[in-house]
């Protein structure tokens, strides 16, 4: 397993957001994490990337215990996150934002290659290299956040609601790009409100409810699960 989360709990002050969840992500997989607002999806992502420290439980990455490791060290290990709400650097240009993505890397040739790859996936970013991040549209910022996360050449890519705020056509496109990234060899943990899309693209998925995992299975299994259908797929 590339990522193993074991019995993880996390508190925000007195509020407990995660109640002993366990999640596994294997090398090469796309794993989706779905759940209602406030279920703890983003919290799980923050615990994996090190922005928030858990109160108990374990996180292992590629066999190493990283539960209490600093966030910047996890980036070097190969974990990269595109945060919820994009979190780009508003005062930096597109190119500078992408540059921040490879802050810990020194292999110039590889960086150049990855920049071309990101521009290949998102031609819009290439057209707008010199534009200041804060002035980009919501959808463009989303592409920038994903592209920036790719610039770290991660082993594990954490995507927190990559389709948020995108036009329907663009949503299709983003999910196609996510599959493409995965086929190029990157393992992906995907948090999504758009359960239909997420489940149909993911190899496996977990359903999170008020800080607990209530269901897990392959994407195809959950797509036809009556309870999941009821709660997350709407009337479809």
């Amino acid at each position, binding site marked *: 397993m590339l990522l193993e989360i074991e019995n993880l709990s996390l508190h925000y002050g007195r509020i407990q957001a995660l109640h002993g969840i366990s999640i596994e992500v294997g090398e090469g997989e796309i794993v989706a994490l779905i759940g209602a607002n406030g279920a703890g999806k983003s919290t799980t992502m923050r615990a994996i990337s090190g922005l928030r420290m858990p109160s108990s439980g374990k996180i292992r990455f590629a066999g190493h215990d990283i539960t209490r490791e600093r966030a910047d060290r996890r980036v070097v290990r190969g974990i990269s996150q595109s945060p919820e709400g994009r*979190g780009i650097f508003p005062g*930096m240009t597109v190119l500078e934002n992408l540059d921040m993505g490879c802050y810990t890397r020194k292999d110039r040739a590889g960086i150049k290659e990855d920049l071309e790859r990101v521009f290949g996936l998102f031609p819009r970013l290439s057209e707008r290299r010199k534009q200041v991040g804060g002035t980009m549209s919501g959808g463009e910022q989303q592409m920038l956040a994903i592209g920036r996360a790719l610039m*770290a050449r991660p082993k594990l890519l954490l995507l927190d609601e990559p389709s948020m705020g995108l036009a329907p056509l663009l949503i299709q496109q983003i999910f196609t790009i996510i599959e493409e990234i995965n086929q190029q060899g990157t393992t992906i943990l995907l948090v999504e409100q758009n359960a239909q899309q997420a489940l149909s693209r993911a190899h496996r998925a977990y359903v999170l409810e008020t800080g607990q995992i209530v269901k897990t299975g392959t994407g195809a299994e959950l797509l036809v699960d009556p309870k999941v259908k009821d709660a997350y797929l709407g009337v479809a």
Partner: protein
Amino acid sequence: MQFEYWLDNFWSLTVGGLTQGAIYALVALGYTLVYGVLRLINFAHSEVFMIGTFAVPIAWTAIGYGRDAHPSGLGSVVLLFAVGLIAAALASAATAMLVERVAYRPLRPKNPPSLIFLITAIGASVVLSEAVGLLVKRKPMGAMTLIQPKEVFTIFGTSVDNVQLLVVGAAIGMMLLLDQFINRTRAGRGVRAVAQNPDAAALMGVNRDRIILMIFMLGGIMAGGAALLYMIKVGSTKYDAGFLLGVKAFAAAVLGGIGNLRGALLGGLLLGVVENWGAGLIGDKWIDATAFVVLVVILMFRPTGLLGESLGRARA
């Protein structure tokens, strides 16, 4: 009002104000850097400057240039300038980094309200100035005259001397270096990233604590430069020499737009000039009052300062 006096001495008041303002600007950078990254007003920064001023005569005396020494020749003046700069920068940077490690960093993981930081900041400031006060028995410390003021040229009938040129030139030079560092280097990119979005910066692999320590170091180095120029210009220091100058440098930072590096330069020079005009216009003892009246008036019209944006927003 002594309008005629002011008019007659307009250029000499301006040149004198620019010289003083250049020192404000260098100290203001320290406030602005820390604020830009941490949203914290480091009140101990005035003591960072003050400790730098003591380092200058101590270093000079240590290499045989006591109070009454007369350095001769350009070579030895340049050498002594370098020694003074290194000593002051080291002392100020070390003080600033110590304050960060002891007074601020231990609090950060607990995420306390900013009022708590303000209180530790004031505490650190008092501790440092009292510690130095006790150490030197509250006596002033003088330094030798490194450079005898000598007219270099005249502008509109006002003579501009070599000390004034050196102070303004050195201050602007240091600020340009800092500006290049922040906008051109990898570490500088890290600084801007933490200022704009600390969580996202951590996700890029930026070590926040290291960037913060570096920010204090850079602010300390600038304050050290200011301390050397102050000793060249004024010639003597005291354990409380940082207080008023620190408050004015902070005012300069706010005036230019706190968090904005170029704003610190503008605010510093402007404050120096305007307070000197005020002194000329209504009398010397009004110099400090003028500075703060100007600050209040400008903030009424531009609450975010003259250049407004913060380090967080600033584009390269």
